[in-house]
C-alpha cells in the first residue's frame, strides 16, 4: 500500500471516530471496562500460577508432638524422621515460637491478650516441620508420619491451603471467564455498531467509491483501522489502572513477602505479560467488531 493511501485511511478512520464521538466514547469505555476486568483476572491468574509454583517448592508437613515428650524423646523422633527416605529436611519448632507467631498475627492486642500464656500455660504444641524431597510425595509422607509409632499427636500439611487456593482460583476463573466473555462480546458488538454508524454516515461516499472502481480493501481499511483504534485506545486506561493497582498491592502487602502465601509475582514480569495481553485482546475485540460490521453492513 502506498504511504499516501495509508495516511488517507488513517485520516478517514479518525474522521469516523470524530463523527460518532459519543458512540466511539461509549465503545471505548465498554472496551476499557472489559479489559479492566480481564486485566484483574490476569493478575490473579498469573499470581495463582506463580504462588502454587512457589508453594510447591516450600510445601512442608507439620507434625504436632504430644506434650508429654521429653527433649531427648523429641530429638530421637527428629532423627528418625530425618532418616526417612522421602524426607529432605526436618526441624523442631518449639511451642514458644508458636506462641510468638500467634501474638504477631494478633498485632497490637496480641501482647496483652496472650499475656500470661508464657511458660507452662502455653497452649501450643511443639512441632516438627518436615520438608519432603518431592512435593508430589507430600501426602504419602504425611500418612507415613501419621502412622509413626508414638510421639506424634497430629499431622498437618499444606493440603488445605493449596487445595483451597486452587479451588478458589478455579471458581474465580470460571466466573470471570463467563462474565468477561459476555463483556467482550458486548464490547465487540458496540464497536461493530459504532462502525455501522460510520458506514451509514458514509454510505454516499462508499457508493461513489464502488462506482468509480475503488478496490474492496481501499474501502474497508478505514473501518478496520477505526475498530482497532477503539480497541487499542480502550486498552490504555485499564492497563495503566491494573499496573498502578498492582504496584499499590505489592507495596502494601510488601511485609507479607516473608510468608509464602503472599509471595506475589514481581512487577516487571507481571507488567509485561499483563499489558501485552490486554492490548492484544483490545486489538482483537476491535478487529472482530470491524469485521462484523464490514461483513454485515458494507455491501461491496
Amino acid at each position, binding site marked *: 500500500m502506498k504511504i*499516501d493511501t495509508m495516511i488517507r485511511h488513517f485520516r478517514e478512520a479518525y474522521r469516523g471516530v470524530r463523527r460518532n464521538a459519543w458512540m466511539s466514547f461509549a465503545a471505548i469505555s465498554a472496551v476499557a471496562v472489559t479489559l479492566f476486568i480481564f486485566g484483574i483476572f490476569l493478575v490473579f491468574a498469573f499470581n495463582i500460577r506463580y504462588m502454587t509454583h512457589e508453594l510447591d517448592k516450600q510445601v512442608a508437613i507439620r507434625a504436632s508432638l504430644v506434650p508429654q515428650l521429653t527433649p531427648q524423646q523429641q530429638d530421637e523422633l527428629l532423627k528418625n524422621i530425618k532418616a526417612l527416605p522421602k524426607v529432605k529436611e526436618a526441624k523442631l519448632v518449639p511451642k514458644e515460637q508458636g506462641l510468638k507467631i500467634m501474638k504477631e498475627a494478633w498485632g497490637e492486642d496480641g501482647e496483652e491478650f496472650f499475656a500470661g500464656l508464657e511458660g507452662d500455660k502455653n497452649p501450643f504444641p511443639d512441632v516438627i516441620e518436615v520438608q519432603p524431597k518431592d512435593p508430589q510425595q507430600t501426602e504419602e509422607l504425611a500418612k507415613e508420619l501419621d502412622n509413626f509409632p508414638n510421639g506424634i499427636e497430629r499431622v498437618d500439611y499444606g493440603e488445605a491451603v493449596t487445595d483451597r487456593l486452587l479451588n478458589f482460583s478455579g471458581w474465580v476463573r470460571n466466573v470471570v471467564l463467563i462474565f468477561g466473555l459476555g463483556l467482550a462480546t458486548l464490547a465487540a458488538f458496540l464497536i461493530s455498531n459504532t462502525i455501522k454508524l460510520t458506514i451509514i454516515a458514509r454510505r454516499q461516499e462508499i457508493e*461513489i467509491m464502488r*462506482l*468509480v*472502481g*475503488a*478496490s474492496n480493501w*481501499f474501502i474497508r481499511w478505514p473501518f478496520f483501522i477505526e475498530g482497532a483504534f477503539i480497541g487499542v485506545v480502550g486498552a490504555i486506561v485499564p492497563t495503566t489502572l491494573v499496573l498502578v493497582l498492582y504496584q499499590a498491592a505489592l507495596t502494601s502487602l510488601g511485609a507479607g513477602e516473608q510468608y509464602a502465601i503472599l509471595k506475589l509475582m514481581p512487577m516487571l514480569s507481571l507488567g509485561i505479560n499483563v499489558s501485552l495481553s490486554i492490548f492484544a485482546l483490545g486489538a482483537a475485540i476491535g478487529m472482530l467488531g470491524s469485521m462484523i460490521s464490514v461483513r454485515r453492513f458494507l455491501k461491496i
Partner: protein
Amino acid sequence: MIEMHDVWKVYDNGVEALRGINVKIDRGEFVYIVGPSGAGKSTFIKLMYREEKPTHGVVLINGVNVKRVRDWKIPHVRRKIGVVFQDFKLLNMTAYDNVAFALEAIETPRRKIRPRVEEVLELVGLSDRMFAYPSQLSGGEQQRVAIARAIVNNPSFLIADEPTGNLDPENSWDIMYLLEEINKRGTTIVMATHNKEIVNTLRQRVIAIEQGIIVRDEEGGEYGYED
C-alpha cells in the same frame, strides 16, 4: 465493446426484469435505451457496470465475462466504465474535490490528480466554478460535475441512467451537447432516457425495451415503443 448473449435478470422477488437480451454495442457508439417505466432499462444499465449479476446468459465488457470475474477484480472492471445518474450523487464537497475523490479512490499518484481534475472540469465547462459546492450549483452544473467525475479516469464507456430526468429543457440540451462532445472524443455512450424531444432531435442508435425484451434496435431511430 459490450456484448450480451441471452441475458435474463430475475430479481429476488420473482420479477423478470430482462428476458433474453441479445445486443452488441461497439466502441465509440452512442446508444439510447428507451422504453416504458418498468421495462428494464435501469436493470440493463446495472448489468453493464456490474451492479447486478445476470441470472442467466453472458455479459462481456471488452471481451471479459463479467459474471466470471472474481470479486476482488470487479473494481478493475468498473474502472473502464463511468456512470451518471438522474440524481447526480454528488458528495457535499467542492466540484474539484468531488472529481478528485474519484482519482484518490483508485489510488492515483497525488501529483497527477490536480492537472487531470482541472483538465476535465475545463472540458465540462466548469473551470470558473471549480470550488463551488453542489448547493451553489444549478442542476445542470451539478450534472456536469457528475459527468466530469465519471470520465476523469478515461473510461472506455460512459453509461447514463436518465441523466436529464431532473433537468429543465435548457440544461438538458447543454448536457446532451456535452455528451455528444465526449462521444466524439472516442468514449462509448449508453444512455437510458424518457426524453422524446432529445431522442428525436439528436438522432442516434435507439434500443427500445419493453417488458424485458428488446422490441426495436434501430440506427438513427425515433423515440417510441410498441403500443
